[in-house]
């Protein structure tokens, strides 16, 4: 039932409410699609079909009795960073082993309480550290997109971006209506850009971080990856809430973002920061940016050149702040209270063995960097310095908001790349986040919208950055871009059915993780 899986949330919602299709039919279509595709794409690390169908049945009861909730019967994927009651949660790391939470993340609970159906847990970079989904303990996710060479699909595999690569690939391949994701330095927006999907990282504090495996607590935010701007608006409204269990979650009303979409952007002031015109930016990225400017102008916005002078310092400052907070957050994985344990001759030896075996290479690297910059004598020179630079980055934006309402930039410096192309040099991989990371550093909302195709036939995205808690304006501007650019979907569904016979492979791979 390919046609059902191709629906947007808004379309599926209508059909389910009008009872043209049942929640069970819709869910079944996705369960079958996942079974046929997952061996090729590896987007899900744990499909949960029984749970999904049980939830769908409950939804059908409610729909029948006229008791439908906002997302009633709509099947979603859930990034494996979100804790799920009774369903294994690993952050795609060996160190969490078969960790099975006894609680649900607040964002997840909000979605299920709104009637949504969970199809399973989605692959991601280990502890969300990566920009290509290649650091996952479950192996990389394969993008449904392939390069075009001489008018034909090339055979080489592309990355779906990261860290939310399972989320972006699953949405792009119609293996869920939309997915949860998290963004610490670009992990929602970069994978969205690389797969032709829409991803929004809301303002820090908009979504509760409770029950989400922590990476860098002052930067982490949850948000959705979806097929359209409208779907992302529907998702974010359901995910966001004030939560007393997360002291950084902000007590402010969550607007009806979907209702805001119709308002248009007449008179909107759009800033174009000159510092984002980085050296060596490809012609096609520059053209994409110019297209975006032209579309917003045509929709009634005015364009203003602005300056964000500290832009170039955001990425190096990020690579102090994020590893420092990660090294502190990941200290909890000690082989005692949950997860993997590799015994040693004494307690310290047990810690050291467990952490050496449980953490992958990139995670170990970041913990060591973080430990170094926080160690005696270095705290002021690194962490404190970086937090001060952060203040300056935020001030740049505060200054910009005096003359503009949103800022328009490319989401990534280049289109999707191949497996292994950037794994050799950590800094080359870190540069993937050069346009997205400032937004996390300043705590602002940012959305990536598909805006065109590269010369290789793969998607490119534009990023809009907004004022704190002004996601509604971002959605309006993003809608204007989507209206002008159209949607970008994969033409040839090469992954379908290819691995149907091996469809239980994911589960088995998960079970064989190091004990």
């Amino acid at each position, binding site marked *: 039932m390919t046609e059902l899986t191709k629906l947007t949330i808004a379309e599926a919602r209508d059909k389910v409410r009008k009872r043209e299709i049942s929640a069970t039919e819709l869910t079944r279509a996705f369960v079958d699609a996942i079974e046929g595709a997952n061996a090729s794409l590896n987007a899900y690390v744990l499909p949960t079909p029984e749970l999904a169908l049980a939830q769908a049945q409950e939804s059908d009861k409610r729909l029948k009795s006229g008791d439908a909730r906002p997302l009633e019967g709509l099947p979603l994927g859930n990034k494996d960073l979100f804790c799920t009651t009774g369903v294994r949660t690993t952050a795609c790391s060996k160190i969490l082993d078969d960790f099975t939470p006894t609680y649900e993340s607040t964002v997840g609970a909000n979605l299920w309480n709104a009637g949504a159906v969970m199809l399973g847990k989605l692959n991601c970079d280990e502890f969300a550290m990566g920009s290509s989904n290649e650091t996952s303990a479950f192996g990389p996710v394969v993008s449904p997109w392939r390069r075009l060479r001489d008018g034909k699909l090339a055979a080489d595999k592309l990355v779906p971006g990261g860290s939310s690569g399972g989320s972006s690939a699953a949405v792009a391949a119609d293996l869920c209506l939309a997915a949860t994701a998290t963004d610490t330095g670009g992990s929602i927006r970069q994978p969205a850009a690389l797969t032709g999907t829409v991803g929004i990282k809301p*303002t820090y504090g908009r979504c509760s971080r409770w029950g989400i495996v922590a990476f860098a607590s002052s930067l982490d935010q949850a948000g959705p990856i979806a097929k359209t701007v409208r779907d992302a608006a529907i998702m974010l409204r359901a995910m966001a809430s004030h939560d*007393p269990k997360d*002291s950084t979650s902000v007590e402010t009303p969550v607007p009806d973002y979907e209702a805001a979409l119709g308002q248009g952007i007449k008179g909107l002031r759009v800033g174009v920061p000159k510092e984002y015109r980085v050296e060596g930016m490809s012609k096609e990225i520059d053209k994409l940016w110019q297209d975006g400017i032209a579309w917003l102008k045509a929709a009634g916005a005015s364009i203003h050149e602005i300056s964000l002078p500290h832009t170039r310092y955001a990425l*190096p400052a990020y690579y102090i702040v994020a590893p420092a907070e990660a090294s502190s957050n990941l200290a909890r994985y000690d082989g005692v*209270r949950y997860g993997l344990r590799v015994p*040693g*001759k004494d307690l310290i030896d047990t810690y*050291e063995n467990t952490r*050496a075996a449980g953490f992958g290479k990139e995670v170990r690297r970041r913990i060591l960097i973080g430990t170094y910059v926080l160690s005696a004598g270095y705290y002021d020179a690194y962490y404190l310095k970086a937090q001060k630079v952060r203040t300056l980055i935020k001030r740049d934006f505060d200054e910009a908001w005096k003359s503009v309402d949103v800022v328009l930039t490319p989401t990534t410096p280049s289109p999707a790349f191949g497996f292994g192309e950037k794994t050799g040099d950590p800094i080359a991989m870190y540069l993937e986040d050069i346009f997205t990371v400032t937004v996390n550093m300043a705590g602002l909302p940012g959305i990536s919208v598909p805006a065109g195709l590269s010369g290789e036939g793969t998607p490119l995205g534009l990023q809009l950055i907004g004022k*704190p808690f002004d996601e509604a304006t971002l959605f309006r501007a993003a809608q204007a871009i989507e209206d002008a650019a159209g949607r970008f979907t994969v033409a040839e569904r090469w992954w379908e059915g290819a691995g149907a016979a091996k469809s239980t492979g994911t589960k088995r791979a998960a079970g064989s993780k190091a004990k």
Partner: protein
Amino acid sequence: MRVDETTVRRIARLARIKISDQEAKGLEAELSGILNWVEQLDQVDTANVEPMTRVVPIELKKRVDTITDGEIADDVVKNAPLVEDHYFVVPKVVE
């Protein structure tokens, strides 16, 4: 090298991660590379700048200091690798 092998070993010890000799050598170059790269922050004058602590100026909420949770020992130890009667079991630490 900004970070030598001795430093790598000291850091790994602090982070409680066992590393092999070969890994220590590789990490010397990797960590030095990253630290050299972040050094560009020295170009920024932060003399009179406060470190950032939050995005919007909100007051941290305080709750009443009462017990709001508990009696869930089964849940707490549910995922532990080694448990005895609601206790986490670790190698002997006191002789």
